[in-house]
């Protein structure tokens, strides 16, 4: 049976995640089946979930509207592996410091939205990811992880964490899906398969 991975599919760079995930799986010789998830029922069949980049306010409203928000929390508590990139990280964080978006608390990490500034301040630079190595990261109107809490810091940029992991949950302030580099998605697949979960354990 292929590994069934869902991507929250309302909005954002959904197809980019799907494409890179398939490439990563191919490299690892793991069979995956990737689905866009747009309603509560579709959440039932996924074995792992990606919340992509996009607008966190928009995704938050739609996840609430279609009763998916609480369901994701419940599934994650029962061990569903989740990766959130940028807007996705904001949604899975424990605190967003913005009344417009409430974090799910899947990872014990505090966020400041748009902390680097506006689009003109978006950038690309080298980071070093634990277990992956040197990596070119793309930051677009990125949030800042102000307090990683109990999560493991897997990468930093200018002394601020940019990638954190806790149990089977991964959060990134940057966008691996915008590049051709499959290593972060490979890391996530290995984590799903139980080889790469980070040390901090449950919340």
């Amino acid at each position, binding site marked *: 049976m292929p590994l069934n991975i869902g991507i929250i*599919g*309302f*909005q*954002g*760079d*959904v*197809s*980019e995640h799907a494409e890179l995930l398939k490439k990563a799986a191919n490299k690892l010789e793991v069979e995956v089946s990737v689905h866009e998830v*747009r309603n509560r029922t579709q959440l039932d069949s996924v074995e792992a979930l990606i919340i992509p*980049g*996009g*607008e966190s*306010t*928009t995704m938050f*409203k*739609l996840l609430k*509207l279609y009763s998916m928000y609480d369901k994701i929390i419940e599934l994650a508590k029962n061990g569903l592996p989740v990766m959130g990139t*940028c*807007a996705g990280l904001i949604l899975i964080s424990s605190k967003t410091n*913005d009344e*417009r978006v409430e974090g799910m608390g899947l990872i014990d990490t505090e966020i400041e*939205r*748009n902390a680097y*500034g*506006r*689009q*003109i301040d*978006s*950038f*690309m630079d080298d980071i070093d990811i634990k277990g992956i190595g040197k*990596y*070119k990261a*793309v930051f*677009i*109107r990125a949030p800042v992880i102000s307090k990683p809490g109990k999560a493991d810091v897997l990468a930093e940029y200018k002394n601020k964490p940019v990638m954190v992991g806790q149990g089977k949950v991964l959060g990134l302030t940057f*966008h691996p899906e*915008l*590049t*051709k*580099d*499959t*290593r972060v998605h490979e890391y996530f697949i290995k984590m799903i398969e139980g080889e790469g979960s980070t040390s901090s354990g449950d919340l």
Partner: protein
Amino acid sequence: MSTDISQLRFGEELIKRGFAKMTKGGVIMDVTTAEQAKIAEDAGAVAVMALERVPADIRAAGGVARMADPEKIKEILNSVSIPVMAKVRIGHVSEGYTLEALGVDMLDESEVLTPADPFFHVYKKQLKVPVVCGARTLPEAVRRIVEGAAMIRTKGEAGTGNVVEAVRHIRMVNEEIGIIKDLSQEELKKVSEKVAENYRVLRKTASEDLFGDENYLTGYNLFYGQNLEKMEAEVLKVLKEVRRLGRLPVVNFAAGGVATPADGALMMKLGMDGVFVGSGIFKSTDPKRMAKAVVEAVENYEDYKIIGNVSSGLSGMQGMEIEKMPKEQRLQERGW
């Protein structure tokens, strides 16, 4: 592994196009006040377009429509957390840099404003912020991408509440992409020469003026120091990308005339990446409900029960029949 990205730096294509990708599947709404911006954000818009007047009012007012008052833009920038876009006149580089300096997240080089340059659009590669441009056809879209547009939208016919022109432009671009997909190298080269031809208009006009022969002077310095060969090569590069991908290489939205939730759904059904709604929200009788309804319809564009539910008792703005409109009043004729 990360092949072509090592040479890209701040403000370059990947970051600009990447920003546009974050809006995919969403609705971008025209707003004229901080209060409207908050309504749009609350409804789930992925970005707002900051304006002094919505297109329907610009159309009604007539005269020269320019970049919005920076004070208005700042007011809107400060009121929401979602990205804020603003319109720049076609070819008005200085308005472009001014908006960039204000902190606007994306510019819309828009035919809704009065064009400032009769010969050239803005050379968008020189700006750090991403720019979206309107297009009615594939050649228009390709030229804008060559100039550095990070996103394309249909022109439609703004401020009319009538989607027929947006649909025309979607169908036209899709048809042309379908044709491109099957072309040989040689045929594609031919198309690229035709597409690049428009960059020669200024040179031809000057040549005619000085020598009475529009082809007496040819070649060099056609567009920001680039010669015809360079422009043709750039056009060919984008056309090859279109052929390989079977779609535009940048995010492609619908715009111009979307007035109801079902209109939004239709745009998605026709394969668009998302929808701009200009006058359709705040010229409707219940903007709050309309804003939410359009977002829900776009997100669930094939779930007709949801579209029926959100549309119930909701009336769209007063529309205009475009057939009866004199050509000079059609905003889509602006730009090339």
